[in-house]
């Protein structure tokens, strides 16, 4: 099972947390999410797998945590 965390505006669209079964890569995961939450397509975000930001497609194993991070606005 893969845990997905949504932050900032993305959590308004998809909720704070989702759990997905049997997704092999981040590309596959993002495709599933966009199908489920079409509003995600208009948003800017980066992706972190197990707290490491990734730049390309990344394979996922069971128990991974994937986070979708919109532009930061702290301070």
């Amino acid at each position, binding site marked *: 099972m893969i845990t997905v*965390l949504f*932050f*900032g*505006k993305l*959590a308004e669209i998809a909720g704070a947390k989702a759990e997905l079964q049997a997704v092999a890569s981040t590309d596959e995961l993002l495709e599933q999410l966009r199908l489920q939450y079409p509003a995600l397509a208009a948003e800017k975000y980066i992706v*972190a797998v197990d*707290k490491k930001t990734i730049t390309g497609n990344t394979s996922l194993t069971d128990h991974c945590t994937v*986070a979708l*991070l*919109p*532009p*930061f*606005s*702290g*301070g």
Partner: protein
Amino acid sequence: MDATTTNRIMERKPKNIFTQGAIDPAFIAESIAKHSTKTDIGGHSIFLGQVRADVIDDKKVAAIEYTAYEELALEKMHIIREEIFSKYELTCMHVHHSLGKVAAGEICLFVFTSSAHRRAAIDACNEVVERIKTELPVWGKELFEDETHQWKVNR
């Protein structure tokens, strides 16, 4: 950063920087007062972020509500801290960031650096503030007086 440094960082537990709600000026005073025993310090530099009551399309910001990816933010802050200490001759450095609701006029960020000679404290403080704004996974939701909101964008 070499592997040894990375290992050393990962071994130590990251310090918490998050505090619920606004940062109290009395807490800032206590922080300053605690440094009177460190008599090798010659200068302190402090940056405070305060929530602005911006007016956007005739609606006024009443508060900002902060959320964060806390574990990632603390790990990132820990790395920033180590890098700042290896770059500047600092005596100490403290960072506090609000989570949850902070009303307009209240303090949401407190960065505090100290050094023997002023330049290091001042330069380090500036750099830490910039890095906090661009590198920490923290989000501000601007709450308007009419209970609508918009997501803050950092410049």
